[in-house]
Every structure is written in C-alpha cells, then in structure tokens.
C-alpha cells in the first residue's frame, strides 16, 4: 500500500508539473519551447544538487539548514583563491570546493554524531557561523566578475552536447545518487537508520555515523554548488543564496520526502526541485511580482507536508487514535 502511494507520488508530481506547464503554455507558448525548458532546468540545477543532499540528511531523521551558508562560504573561498591564483586549473578549484564543503558538512555531522546535539540546533548555529566567516574572510567586500578569471567563469556555461555543464553536473548527481541510494549498502543504511533507528542499531548499523555521512554528502554537494553558483553569477559576497535553505527543504518536502525520516527518493527530490523551479521561472512570465515567491514556497511546504502526513498515516495499526495525533 505504502509502496504504491510512494510510487505514485513521483507520478503525481510529474503530472502537476505537466499541468503547470500546460497552463502557462496556453497563454505563453514560448515558455514550453525546448530551449526555454532547458534554461529552466539549468536555472534549477543548484536547487536540484542541494535537494539531493538534503534528501539524504532528512532520510536519516536530521535536517541541514546550513547548506546555503556552506554554499556561500565555499563560493567565497574558491573565488578568493581564483583572484589570488588565477592560473589554477578548474579541477583544483572543483576539488577545493567539494573538499571544503565536505569538511563543513562533517562539522555538522560530528556535532550530531559525537555530541548528540539535535541537528536543527547544530545547523541553525553553523548557518550563522558560516555566514559570519564569509564576512571575516572577505571583510564584507564583493568579488566581482572582472576579478575572476575567464576559465573560472566559463566552466558552468561550457556547452556539452547542447546543455551547459551546470545541467550535466545536476544530471550526473541525480544518476550517481540514485545508484548510491538503491544499489549500495551505504544508501540502504540511510533508509534503515531513518526508518527505524532501533532496528538499525540491532542490525549492526551505527546510527550516528550514518547520519555523519549524510551530512558529509550534503556538505559536499553544497560546496560543489558553491563554486558553480559564484562562477555562474560571476559574483560572490556575504549574502549570496540567502534563505536558499528554505527552498531546498521545500523541494524535499514537495518531493515526498518524509520529515520523520526513512521515506523518500532521489527522483522525488529532483521533481520537487523542478516543481519549484518551474514556478519561480514562470512568475515573471505570467507577470506576477517576484515578491510572491516567498509566500508561494511557504504555502508549498505546508501543503506538501500535510499531503505527506496523510499519505504516511495509513501505515500500521492505530491503537489510540488521539495519541497518533499528538505524538
């Protein structure tokens, strides 16, 4: 029963995105041309990358609110490295970005694993600490387009088989993590730890350590996205991607990932992100002020979480109805 509901969740979302596109197409046919849709996908790629990482964290009953700050800090560090050493090959920049992002994610993971501090507290704290560190590093200054090397800026835009590199990286991440989540022991461990921590412990899984790896993966993807973000927009400052963590959580919740852990797929995260991406890109087209966006993603979170709760409630036997309500 549950399996079927989940399987249909992706179908429902795909349908919703289709309906959305059809509605927009009736008035603005230009929006659904392949070229524009590819543009929307490319624009949503950072959200997809972060949503995949966040999904793994949420699977293990945690939450990572520091992803946007991690992105901004890593972005600032690599752009400052680029300014200091413009000749450095992009591979090195990519390695630094992923490495630093992973390290920042591991800080979250260690605090959750070793000290058993609730993830919400840890990542609320590291969120502000990471942002503050950007200020300390940059002295509040911006790194602007003309200071970055051409190779640094060109990477995410490089066209490969008709799509920009940024899109390809998002596609690669989705494929890679679909394989990891469905075909490896680590992937299954994420589900086991979130689905039933006690049972996971008895089967020999270290719950804290598994959560640690989830944070490391989320950090790695945030770091990678940090470089892609600053190079794509060709600017880096303290507040880039401010509040983006809420969009990421929204994408996951919309994608059917249960906040209670253990339920969710990479495909769900992808579709949740695309759903938000289509809305975000369609707002200016249909002439709605961008100021609406915050309220729309907020409503989307609430509606999606209510929807998820209904879908998940049917599992198991309800012994005391009202206790289920309040617990």
């Amino acid at each position, binding site marked *: 029963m549950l399996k079927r509901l989940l399987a249909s969740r992706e179908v429902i979302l795909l349908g919703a995105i289709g309906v959305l596109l059809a509605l927009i197409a009736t008035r603005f046919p230009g929006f659904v041309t392949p070229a524009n849709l590819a543009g929307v996908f490319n624009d949503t790629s950072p959200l997809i990358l972060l949503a995949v990482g966040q999904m793994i964290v949420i699977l293990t*009953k945690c*939450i990572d609110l520091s992803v946007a700050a991690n992105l901004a800090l890593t972005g600032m560090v690599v752009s400052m490295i680029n300014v200091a050493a413009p000749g450095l090959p992009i591979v090195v920049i990519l390695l630094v970005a992923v490495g630093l992002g992973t390290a920042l994610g591991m800080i979250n993971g260690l*605090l959750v694993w070793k*000290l*058993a*501090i*609730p*993830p*919400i*507290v*840890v990542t*609320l*704290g*590291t*969120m*502000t*600490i990471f*942002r*503050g*560190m950007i*200020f*300390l590093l940059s002295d*509040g200054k911006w790194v602007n387009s003309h200071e970055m090397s051409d190779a640094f800026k060109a990477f995410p835009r490089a066209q490969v088989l008709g799509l920009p590199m940024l899109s390809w990286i998002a596609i690669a991440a989705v494929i890679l993590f679909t394989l990891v989540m469905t075909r490896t022991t680590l992937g299954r461990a994420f589900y086991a730890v979130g689905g039933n*921590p006690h049972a996971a412990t008895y089967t020999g899984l270290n719950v804290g350590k598994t959560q640690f790896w989830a944070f490391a993966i989320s950090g790695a993807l945030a770091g990678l996205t940090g470089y892609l973000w600053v190079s794509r927009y060709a600017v880096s400052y*303290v507040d880039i991607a401010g509040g983006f963590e*809420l969009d990421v*959580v*929204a994408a996951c*919740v919309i994608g059917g990932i249960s*906040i*209670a*852990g253990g339920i969710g797929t990479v495909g769900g995260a992808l579709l949740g992100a695309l759903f938000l991406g289509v809305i975000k890109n369609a707002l200016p087209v249909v002439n709605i*002020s961008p*100021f*609406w*966006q*915050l*309220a*729309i*993603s*907020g*409503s*989307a*979170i*609430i509606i999606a*979480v*209510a929807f998820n*709760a209904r879908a998940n*409630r049917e599992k198991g036997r309800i012994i*005391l109805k*009202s*206790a*289920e*309500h*309040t*617990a």
Partner: protein
Amino acid sequence: MSTTERFIPDRLQSPLATRLKSWESLLLLVAIAIFIANSFASPYFLNAWSLSDATFNFTEKAMIAFAMALLIISGEIDLSVASIIALASTAMGAALQLGAGTPVLILVGLGTGLLCGAFNGVLVTRLGLPSIVVTIGTMSLFRGISYIVLGDQAFRGYPADFAFFGQGYVFWVVSFEFVLFVLLAIIYSVVLHRTNFGRTVYAIGNNPTGALFSGIRVARVKFILFLLTGLMAGVASICLTSRLGSTRPSIATGLELEVVTMVVLGGVNILGGSGTIPGVFIAAFVMGLVTFGLGLLNVPGIVMSIVIGALLIGVIALPRLWAMWRK
C-alpha cells in the same frame, strides 16, 4: 523533531532541580563577569543611559523567548516568530494607511500575532504535522505575505503616541519595554512554576503519550502554547515597530535564531521536558550584554551573529563534552 520522542520518555536526567539550579547560578556568574568585562572594555558602558539602551537589545526577543520556552519544554518549536513580527507590523502599517489610531493599531498587532499562532497551532495539533517543518513553512509564508503587501516599499508615519511602546520611559531611564519584560517574566514564571497548566507543560514534554493517558489534553495545551507564542510575537512587533517608527518586510530577519538561542542558553532542554523562566530571564541579560558590549567595541553585527551561533552550539556541546571527559 521526531528525535524528541526517542530520547525524552525513558531518560530523565539526574536530580533535575539541583542541576538547573547550578545552571542558573552559573549563568548569573557569566552575566556578572560580562558586565564587569564590559565596564573595563569601554568607558561608555557604565552609564545609566547606556545601560538603559542596552536593554533594548534583548527585551523584545526575551518577550518571545518566555513563550518559546514553554513551547520548547512541551516538545514543540516555532521558527516563524520573526516572520509573525513582520506580518503583524505590516498589518499595523496597513491599518495605519486606513486611518487607524493607536488603540486600533495595538489590537491589530496582537490580533495578527494570535491568528498566526492559531494557524501554526491548528496545523500542528489538528493535522498532526511536525512543528519544525510547519513553522519553516509559515516562516516563508508570513514574511512572504509582508513582501506581497509591501514589495520594496515601507509603511511610515506612525502616530506620536504610538512611539511610547518602543521609545517611552516609565520613569527616569526605565523604559516601557523593560517594565513589560520584567512583568512578563513574572507572569510566565508563575504560570510555568506555580500552576497546574505549567505542570502539564512539563508532563507533555517529558512524555506526551503518558501525559495523554493521565488525562491531559495534550493537543489543547500545545495549541494554547502556539497561541501564546504568536501573541508574544505580536507584542514584540508592536514594540519593535514603535521603536523603529517604520515597517519594512525585512523587519526582524533572523530574530528566531536569537530567540531559540536565548531559550537554550537559559537552560531549557531543546528536546523538551525541562527548563525554567528565571534561566531564560538571566540568559536574556547575558545575550543583551554580550551584543551591547561588542557593539561598543565596534564589532559588526554579522560577527556578533557568529558569537550567537557559537553560543547556541557551545551551550549544548560543553556540558556534553564535560560529561564525556569525566567518564
């Protein structure tokens, strides 16, 4: 989060009262130490008017922190408080445009706070959704509505007598806000520590299912706590709007973090079940003195946020590190 249910029921900490007692006296010592350090660090600190100014750093946040303490003790959390401030302030501004006088403005501010609290409460208690996701959603939604109403505009021109709430003094250097803060501290202390209702809050936080079986109306108590938190955010909104004299949609951004930090610093267990109002009361002074002292030393706001973030994690991490080290 769901981790709450796993940790609370079967693990009550060592003699609770003695530990909390020592936590509060420790906090008091910290407050005194910071006070002394501040008076050495800056010649402008030890001055009645300076100190009075310093109280504005924490009074508004502390008003919310009292209600938030009760909510967190009961095992829930409200991350939307800063957005409730924004929405209540926007509603007051809109009422002002329609020609409302000060009494109506107050009613509108309090009413908006109550409505927002009720909205959170209904979603959490009626639909049984996790408060952390619901309030992340309403955090976007409430502020999003402010953005829809205001865009890049601001409401100005609040009546002269409205300024009293944020700028008025009851006598000499004692501000209205400070008096309100002390009054609320007393009221919340009595409610939490001297009434049946207060006991039920602890009972729910320690074991929601057990509380339900002992005849406590868990959902109803939680709903009231969400209402109270919303109401306090409304009160804080009135004070803040009156103090600033204008409303922008970005008002009080990130304030929820400081409120949660204040509550946790005050010795409230983030997983629910324990904590006191006097602890939060002293924590308010500690945070106010730290930020004011750093401000006098010309430390930028964003660096202060590092201190707040580190404080949030450190306050929980240090006792656990200490316990690990002693083992």
